[in-house]
């Protein structure tokens, strides 16, 4: 699709797999919200098509623009946009009463319970905290029985503490409901916690898209999230849990990775970001180190990195991991693609970077 606004041009072709959570990720001004509004029908593109479940919603060549209210696409706005003159309960019922779906997927009681809205039902929007408002907005959108849920930076106007009033509920929605979601964000942590699929937008164009673990290796991602958050995302099943030490083991490629992780059962699927700056490479087996993981690996590629460092891509039994080392270290170890190395990962460095995934996605 193509959309030109004064001083801005969006040119994006995007095919989103459903179900799942697709993150539209990019800096502000990259076209995330414009794209979302085109999907919702709030903006009409100059050229292009929008298709959902095989139904043409927008086709500028044929002059088809299905009105917003008939698209059955839910929208959670950054500023919640609750109706100030209606109670929480009536806000929730607003969409439910106007639903255009033949069947009800999400019932009122179910949604209220899932989002923890019971104590808020009689309140007016102005009596709610920012996090509560977003939860109500989420429930209101769900009750209109959408085929797709758009979330436009729903956490951006909340402080860190308030974000935690919403994020766990979003994770629960992803895992319990089968509604595909498009999640707009410029916070990489939100992507790691929620998304199954990542679309990188820059200057109104789709830079790249793919599953989150693959996209974590994409070089230009660094320009958006900054060098310190660069790190390979790996996904695996928890194979062993030690509740006493707060550690767990998970399958990584053909090997096993020991991580700091509590409150996760054996068999859970987790996603883990190994920050490149925390990963150590060794050309020989090491002894007498506190590092819990020393994994036999092969160097795949070496790239120049931020501030003269090097980003080394290694294959750890089928999983790809990034390690950031200095140019001095690179010269001292004389690393070349194809070399065998040991990849050292501190178990404690994974704390706070491990997220549970929906079973089986």
């Amino acid at each position, binding site marked *: 699709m193509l959309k030109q606004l004064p001083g801005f041009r969006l040119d994006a072709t995007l095919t989103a797999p459903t179900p799942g959570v697709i993150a539209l990720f990019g800096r502000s001004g990259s076209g995330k919200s414009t794209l979302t509004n085109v999907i*919702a029908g*709030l903006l009409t593109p100059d050229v292009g098509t929008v298709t959902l479940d095989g139904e043409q919603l927008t086709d500028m060549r044929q002059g088809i623009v299905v*009105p*917003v*209210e*008939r*698209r*059955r*696409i*839910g*929208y959670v*706005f950054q*500023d919640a*946009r609750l*109706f*100030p*003159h209606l109670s929480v309960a009536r806000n929730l019922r*607003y*969409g439910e009463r*106007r*639903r*255009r779906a033949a069947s009800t997927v999400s019932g009122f009681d179910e949604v209220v319970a899932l989002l923890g809205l019971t104590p808020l039902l009689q309140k*007016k*929007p*102005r009596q709610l905290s920012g996090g509560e408002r977003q939860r109500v907005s989420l429930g*209101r*959108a769900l009750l*209109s029985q959408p085929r797709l849920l758009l979330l436009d930076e729903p956490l951006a106007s909340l402080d860190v503490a308030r974000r935690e009033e919403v994020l766990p509920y979003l994770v629960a929605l992803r895992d319990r409901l089968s509604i595909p979601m498009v999640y707009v964000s410029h916070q990489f942590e939100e992507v790691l916690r929620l998304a199954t699929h990542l679309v990188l937008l820059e200057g109104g164009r789709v830079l790249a898209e793919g599953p989150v673990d693959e996209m974590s290796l994409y070089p230009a991602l660094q320009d958006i999230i900054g060098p310190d958050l660069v790190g390979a995302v790996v996904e695996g099943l928890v194979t062993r849990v030690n509740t006493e030490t707060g550690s767990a083991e998970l399958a990584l490629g053909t090997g096993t990775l020991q991580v700091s992780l509590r409150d996760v059962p054996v068999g859970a699927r987790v996603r883990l970001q190994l920050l490149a700056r925390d990963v150590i490479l060794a050309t020989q087996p090491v002894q007498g180190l506190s590092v819990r993981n020393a994994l036999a690996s092969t160097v795949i590629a070496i790239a120049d990195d931020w501030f003269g460092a090097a980003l080394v891509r290694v294959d750890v039994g089928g999983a790809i991991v990034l390690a950031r080392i200095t140019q001095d270290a690179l010269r001292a170890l004389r690393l070349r693609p194809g070399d065998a190395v040991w990849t050292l990962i501190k178990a404690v460095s994974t704390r706070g970077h491990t997220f549970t995934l929906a079973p089986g996605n």
Partner: protein
Amino acid sequence: MNASPESPELEALRLSLEVAVRSVGFSLPLAVLAAWVLTRARFPGRLLLDAFVHLPLVLPPVAVGYVLLLLFGARAPLGAWLRTEFGVQLAFTTAGAALATAVMTFPLMVRAIRLSLEHVDLGLEDAARTLGAAPLDRFLSITLPLMLPGILAGAVTAFAAGLGEFGAVITFASNVPGVTRTLPLALYTAMQSPGGDALALRLALLSFALGLLGLLAAELLVRRVRRYLGG
């Protein structure tokens, strides 16, 4: 010469109230429509319509009354049509006084309603759209309730101002005791009559009290509605 048993003060008060109520009832829906069109619609000639709506603010009221007479007088085209089709006569009747008052207070009402409509967040209407609300539904369920403070303020201000409309009423509806002799007309008549000073003073005080009461009521009402709406 006064046929009714009422005192002239009571009669004038009753007539003024009747005229003001009828004028507000008549013009309110139109004022909401005009405010919506002037705020939200984009069409050629919008500025002209805007100026036209505001014209009664700057015209001499006598001129407005005269134009109404030209349009709705007994022999005027619209007036004749109304009488043959509906049996309605406007000139020299209470209904005519209400019409003249409605025209004069229309800009006040539109301004107040517009002000509140401009404060209604278009984002809320977008949100309603994504929830499946069609245009009229959106207007009735979201826009109109949120405009309520302005609508009430406009209605009460127009009502208070309508109690005192003089020039347009006397020109279009004349000064008929018991029919179109509202408070200001009665006051004017008393001033013109020998020995009417005491009556004139009483009528003036009555107008003063009514106006003050109206404005206070408007303010209190608007505050209350704002609080209800959660603004």
